[in-house]
């Protein structure tokens, strides 16, 4: 079973993500409320996939991705950012930080699962 870490400062969105993932059979989902907490949890446990929001207090999503990529254990892990915009600027930042991909918010559960399946293969 794939271990997934969901990082978002909105309790509601974490819950939505978790619900959608669990509905798709991914029941091992851990939550974190900001980048720092996400990083700490990712250091404590090795996750197979990290899905993170971008705008968060303490440490934003790009910084989290960058920090995780710098670690050997996450050098090749899929790291997905959640974004409300698909601007070139966002893409440039995402690419630069080392993210695997992005999902637009609000997300469609089916698409979320499609992405998750693709990256976990």
């Amino acid at each position, binding site marked *: 079973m794939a271990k997934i870490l969901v990082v978002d*400062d*909105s*309790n*509601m*969105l*974490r*819950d*939505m993500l978790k*619900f*959608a993932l669990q*509905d*798709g059979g991914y029941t091992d989902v851990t*939550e*974190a*409320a900001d980048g720092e*907490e996400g990083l700490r949890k990712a250091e404590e446990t090795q996750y197979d996939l990290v899905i993170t*929001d971008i*705008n*968060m*207090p*303490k*440490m*934003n999503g790009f*910084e989290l991705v*960058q*920090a995780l*990529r*710098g670690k050997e254990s996450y*050098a*090749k892990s*899929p790291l*997905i950012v959640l974004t*409300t*915009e*698909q*601007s070139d600027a966002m*893409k440039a930042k995402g*690419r*630069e*930080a*080392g*993210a*695997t*991909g*992005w*999902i*637009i*918010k*609000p*997300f*469609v*559960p*089916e*698409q*979320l*699962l*499609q*992405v998750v399946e*693709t*990256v976990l293969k």
Partner: protein
Amino acid sequence: MANFDINKYRSMFLEEAQDLFSSLEQILLEAESSGSLDDQTMQELFRDMHTLKGGAASVEYVDFTRFTHELETFLDRLRNHEFAYRPEMADFFLQSLDVMKELMLLESDGAVTPQQYDDITAASLERLQEFVAHTETTPAQNEAFGFFTEPEPQAPSAEAEGGGFGFFDDPEPAESGKKEAFGFFEQAEAPEVAKPTAASAPATPTETGKERVAKKSSMSNTIRVDLGKIENLMNNIGELVIATSMISQFVDSLTDMKLKNSFIEKMDLLERHIRELQESVMSTRMVPMEDIYAKFPKMIRDTAKKLDKNVEFNHFGDSVEIDKAMIEGLTDPLMHIIRNAIDHGIESPEVRVAEGKTEHGTLMIGAEHANGQIIISIADDGKGIDVDRVANKAVERGILSSEQLAVLGHNEKAELIFHPGLSTAEKITDVSGRGVGMDVVKNNITKLGGAVGIKTEAGKGTTITIVLPLTLAILDGLNVTIGDMTVILPLASIVESLQPTAGMIKTVGDGSEELLMLREEFIPVVRLHRYMNIPPKNDTLTEGMLIVVRGGNHKVALFVDEFRNQQQVVVKPLDKNFHNIQGVGGATVRGDGTIGLILDVLGIVDRFKYMGSEAAA
């Protein structure tokens, strides 16, 4: 496939939105008073707005999202220094928050019509346009009108085209390219790309955790629980308390002393654990007063602005905890008191200066715990209440006889403002005096088992004090007997008890009104058996017991036959049919399964507090 219960998420969003609104208001009010907004705070502002938008979009509040998007885009440009921040922008954003709240309210009730949307947002969007037009360095000068965010609505159209995600695996996404709603970066490359970037990562994160940020990002090791579930838990503990007292009674009837003592020992342990359990469940319902206070700064600002007054708001006791169940009943009365204080209490700057006061008035709200109660006080340094006018009006309207008036103390006259039908506002303003008077405030507080008191001084200001029980659910009571009946007196209300001597009792009026003279204080005596219509065991004051109880600022002495044991009881509301029994405020189930009635001390004190006050004067 995932079947979202959108309503569940909507209510989660509404709750989250409240926190975000509070945070935004706090930032903006600070910005308004300081006249500036630093980069980091701007960042916070943007993030809160962004989170609101993202959340709203996720629960399909489209109009709220649309409007918030405008604000967010503007903030984005502001934080990127495309425009300079101007002090009046704080006011604009504060106003826009009201627009957002209105939209949210409408959308949570149903759809918003295009007309409604335009009406609600027009003023705010127009101001936004002005800001943009005034500051834009490369303006689209020929355009008389236009939204800078309009052209590329991202999420919906992307979705419509079937996208919603993307991978960054090739520089120019080919297949999923145009209609992506998700995307991938070059995966094989990622590590190589990432490592150097990670190495050159800026050492300073853009955020340093400020207090409010830390508070808001409620750690994910907390969970939100429906209040109803906790209520349920509380009820179960109540039943447990009852069951335990049943066992206690059974133990009492045991004759084998050895067995009995051993039982009692274990029962003590059990009772202690139940009490601890009750306390820990109670503590989950407790929230700090700052949750209530957070609603005030904006309201105070708006009210003061509307009335052209300057008001400084201070608060203390932010961490004092209060039962969540009480917050709802408490917020409205507090709001009303505050509005009243600003409207009728605090003077206009000109008047204040003319009277040698500071130009700005001060409004202070505080909370503290004392004797198992919460005391909340709201004080202003305004003009005070014209108590004689209030009192004369009360006489005019037949609420009070002129004899009664003659003996009322200063603050007792002021207390008349809580009487239904007494509103002394010189004119009905749009701020207070909308037919909802201080009597409603008092009623609401009474419903919570609390009492209201008032102190006022002409020219100096008014302080309103609210005393509330810590919890509504369980109380410590004293069993007292009146004739054949045993009733429960809440322990928290008891000041002292005594067996009076003949010299301590004074009779006034036609002899039916009695006063207890206790250390130079005259306290009205209430013969409970008369009040409650129960045949007494004895009718002579010196042969029974007097229990002095307090309700708000007043005391009365209750005459009972005797008192028995102390007991913890679970308060059950009375059925509607019994609501108006004189002197009874609630009921409980005793250990033996019978119903015990709980005395309504506040009601009794309220009814008798002025009795015999002529003699006291």
